[in-house]
């Protein structure tokens, strides 16, 4: 566990440990963009080494909520947050939190693959070099490990110096996943990671996500209901900034508690 674990505020010391059961813990979280209330009083606990899908119509707040976990919203003008978010026992919005350390711990994969205009090797090694790792052998080992984990190694091992931009869309997305894995996070945030991919590439990424669950806690935002039901253990349904329902995926997709959830997943609104 990296430095984020060592960052503890006074508040966390006095509270009961949540790390035994939950990896991520959000409590009474609200988000404002200026006067606009984007997230309204959401609490959620996420178990380690599980896959949680965030679903909901566009603008419901699911991506905003996802980006709270690695403080990506900090860059948004007029962003303001209330409530508390902890990873293990550390309050990630505490004053002592080192955001760079947090982002090593919490990797992110975006909707469109965004490789750097560099070689395949350089793309994966990028994060390690930023961290100040200079040992070439260690970097090579970590690059190989990340590419293997991302199920890309066999396809690129003979062309590591080739430009990453020459890869197909699906390969580029797996490269971005490898780049994220190389810095050895414990949490992966994925914001619609397959929405720009064809069905074969989508299937490969889904299979990969499923494999990664053994080592990582994964949260995925998706508009694809079948994807959510295929790969996730838990599903959270958001609507207009509210968390309407959060439960085991098999419950949500067979017998949801709330009518709004039922209407959304069956395609009757949204």
């Amino acid at each position: 566990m990296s430095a984020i674990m060592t960052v503890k505020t006074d508040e966390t010391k006095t509270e009961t440990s949540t790390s035994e059961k939950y990896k991520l813990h959000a409590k009474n979280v609200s988000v404002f963009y200026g006067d606009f209330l984007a997230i309204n009083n959401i609490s959620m606990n996420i178990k380690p080494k599980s896959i949680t899908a965030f679903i909901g119509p566009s603008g419901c707040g699911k991506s905003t909520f996802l980006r709270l976990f690695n403080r990506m919203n900090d860059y948004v003008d007029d962003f303001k947050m209330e409530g508390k978010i902890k990873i293990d026992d550390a309050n990630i919005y505490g004053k002592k939190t080192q955001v760079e350390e947090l982002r090593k711990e919490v990797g992110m994969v975006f909707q469109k693959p965004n490789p750097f205009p560099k070689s395949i090797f350089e793309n994966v090694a990028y994060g390690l070099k930023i961290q100040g790792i200079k040992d070439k052998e260690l970097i090579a080992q970590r690059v190989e490990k990340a590419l293997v984990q991302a199920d890309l190694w066999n396809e690129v091992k003979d062309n590591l110096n080739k430009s990453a931009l020459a890869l197909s869309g699906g390969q580029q997305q797996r490269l971005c996943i490898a780049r994220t894995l190389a810095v050895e996070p414990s949490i992966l945030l994925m914001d619609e990671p397959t929405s720009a991919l064809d069905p074969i590439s989508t299937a490969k990424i889904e299979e990969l996500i499923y494999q990664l669950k053994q080592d990582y806690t994964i949260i995925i935002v998706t508009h694809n209901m079948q994807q959510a039901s295929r790969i996730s253990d838990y599903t959270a349904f958001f609507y207009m900034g509210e968390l309407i329902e959060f439960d085991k995926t098999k419950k949500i997709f067979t017998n949801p508690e709330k009518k709004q959830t039922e209407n959304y997943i069956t395609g009757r609104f949204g």
Partner: protein
Amino acid sequence: MINIEEQRVALSQIGEEMLSLCHNQVQLAYEAFTIFDTDLAEEIIRKENRVNALDLKIERDTDRFIALYNPVASDLRFALALLKINYNLERIGDQSFDIANHTVDLNQKLVPELVDRMQFNLMYETLDSMFKDVETAYINENIKAARKVFKKDKIINEINTNAFNIVAEDAVKHPELIRQYLMALVVMKKFEKIGDLLKNISESIIFYIDAEILKHKKKK
């Protein structure tokens, strides 16, 4: 109405048609057997083809619904329940078909006292009422009506058990009627089976409406 809703309504209507057709087959089977009407029996035998055709249509359309519309939650439960309901209805059709064939094979009217003693009337009235409950439950998504079926099935089982004892006693007294007694028992067993199948259908309707699985549960 969105497309999946339209498809579901269309499927539900075919299910309703199958229910009504099988209900009618049981009505005819009762009449044909108890009043010995071979015309009615032959009508049942002819209509069995329609039952089979509808069975195949429901199966094919439901498979297509699942494949093309990826139903979830209540849509998925409906599709799964409809497949089971259809399977049980088709078997009810088979039971009616068998009763019709037995009627033709027996080739004689049952002695009225035997019909009364074995309570064929009560058996049929109970089955008819169970069918009506199932239809109400299916069409109006009425769980209360579905649950009534379980109690009524106990009446059916009791009549069937008693019939066995009656035949055991009476066949000794009237050995000349042994063929009628045996055939009456066989047909009674078929009606009893229809009761069981209606109970299965009620379980599927409750699963669809309430996501509650009652299969193999003693208390329903």
